[in-house]
């Protein structure tokens, strides 16, 4: 079995591929000890080779595995993973725990990409952090925001300041659902800038954990003029796309 291991800032995903078919899918939070989490994920698996990706991709050298190891960036991994789901993809958007990537792709190859640099504004972490203000789980935050209307403009793209802004909007008596919607809009606006810089073309594949958020999906469709399912394609288990791409890279090597 060829493994792809995506060691991200918030979670670690493992995908195993045999004869081109996915036969193993596992996932754990990264925690403060990613090596131990990787070992847990690999428990009982005997890989013929392993490809690491994600910000912790070089940790694979320290897992004590005796099979061939290699690493690719999450940019390449997401492009490969997205293309395996949707070979016709022209653009890939991945919103992960701490970074957002936009890529223009042709046949699974990256032509141009953009990535947020120093700060986690507009990423999964932003949603997680601001969901905390509403005291709801990040998984339910999108559904919650969809109940809002007339969202106030959140002008700050800084996660910390956005929280402050949300708090003061609440104090002013804005409906919390509307504020939540405003926060989602802020993310999508930032994402759209990135997509435009790589010359957004449909079909757009949306991957990463944030692709599970129904409000981000809807706003993305609205702001790009694309239709979900036709122009904007979301893989099953969008957070596994990076690990899948890594495993596929190993299979083609």
């Amino acid at each position: 079995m060829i493994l792809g291991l995506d060691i991200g800032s918030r979670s670690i995903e493992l995908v195993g591929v045999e004869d081109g078919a996915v036969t193993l899918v596992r996932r754990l939070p990264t925690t403060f000890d990613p090596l131990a989490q990787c070992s847990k994920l690999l428990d009982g698996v005997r890989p013929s080779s392993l490809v690491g990706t994600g910000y912790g991709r070089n940790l694979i050298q320290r897992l004590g595995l005796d099979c061939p190891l290699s690493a690719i960036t999450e940019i390449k991994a997401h492009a490969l993973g997205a293309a395996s789901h949707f070979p016709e993809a022209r653009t890939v958007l991945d919103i992960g725990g701490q970074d957002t990537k936009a890529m223009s792709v042709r046949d699974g190859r990256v032509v141009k990409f953009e990535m947020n640099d120093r700060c986690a504004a507009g990423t999964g972490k932003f949603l997680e952090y601001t969901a905390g203000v509403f005291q709801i789980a990040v998984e339910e935050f999108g559904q919650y925001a969809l109940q809002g209307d007339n969202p106030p403009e959140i002008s700050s793209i800084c996660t910390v300041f956005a929280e402050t802004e949300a708090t003061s909007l609440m104090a002013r008596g804005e409906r919390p659902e509307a504020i939540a919607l405003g926060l989602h809009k802020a993310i999508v606006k930032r994402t759209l800038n990135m997509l435009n810089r790589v010359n957004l073309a449909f079909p757009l594949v949306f991957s990463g954990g944030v692709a599970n958020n129904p409000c981000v999906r809807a706003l993305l469709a609205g702001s790009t003029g694309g239709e979900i399912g036709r122009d904007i394609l979301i893989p099953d288990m969008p957070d596994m796309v990076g690990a899948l791409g890594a495993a596929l890279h190993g299979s083609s090597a």
Partner: protein
Amino acid sequence: MTDSAHKAMWEKLDLDLNAHDALLSVLGKFYGDIFLAQEGRLKGAEYLDFVLSEVHGLRIRELQEAKALGRKVIGSFCVFVPEEITLAAEAVHVGLCAGADAGTELAEQLVPRNTCALIKSFIGFKMARLCPYIESCDMIVGETTCDGKKKAYEAFNEIAPTYVMEVPQTKSAPARELWKAEILRCLRAVEELTGRTITPERLKEGIRLVNEKRRALQRLTALRAASPAPISGRDALLVNQISFYDDPVRFTAKINELCDELEARIARGEGVAPKNAPRLLLSGCPMAVPNWKLPFVVESTGAVIVGEESCIGTRNTRDLVDESADTLEGMIDALADRYMKIDCACFTPNTERLDNVSNLARQVHADGVIHYSLLFCQPYTHEALKVDKRLAADGLPMLSIETDYSMEDVEQLKTRVEAFVETLG
């Protein structure tokens, strides 16, 4: 370089000895990791290692010895300040480095926070008393290349007397006249400082010496077109960095020796990276000592840097001064013409830079270009967009990086650079 004689010298220069020791130890470690750990280095790199290991030691001692003989030391921060004039006045010219975060908090008392790292660095080095070069200078020559520097020199002048040359903003005929007048004004100021009269003979010799230095660097640039790449980008950058403060005659001889070695290596078909390693051109802002962050990140991916389109690179070495003039007037004209060819992003328009980047990329057989702008450097950040467009038309991929001297973004940089290199494969 920690012997007691050096210490006494540093104390005399009024450096903050403890902070300076700490700086040197960090530098030493950096240098070991980034340069000494490389495989297949040239024999000629021993010179680079020696100069760097004595950068605050023996070279500073040489400056003190020159001063004891009545020679003056002139420092600058920019390739617009003509070294030819300094040499014609038998003075020593040093490019002040400004490539590390030092005294940043102190610097922010004099310049705003959103000032580029290079400016903060030279002010910080002075305020924190860490740079023996600045302390050895009899005259520091600034220039009006960007708003950040222009205003910073006003503030800097309060702590280190600074002479400022006015660099024009366009390349029109009146702009050239202004620049010629500025060269003449600088020449007079240097004469006054040194008490030496700059005769046509002396200026001619100054021009010849600097041309020889630039020719050696041009030779290095040309040799880097070979595949496999015969020298790492890090070592080549170091050569360019050292060109700003080592003795020009010694430097030229050593770099020509290094080029001889490169030629032999190329003839044997040897290089520092495999033949199929991605070849990258760096383009943009200068990387002053010890700003080796991006080259290290780039070459750690297995790619090799084959050129630097920057002030510490081809922007400083591409053009020579015409040596045919015999009169002072003729030579000043020749200097003005040569310096006006510099394709600094401070000019408007600056379209020749686009041609120069494109030509250099082709000359060194680059597979891609990494454009580097210092955070808050408006001129180069603007031009990153123009260069990107031009290179796209040439069919050459480009990655735009905006960063500073801090290490906080190294992991993100690695990912972006690696991903860019992956797209070239």
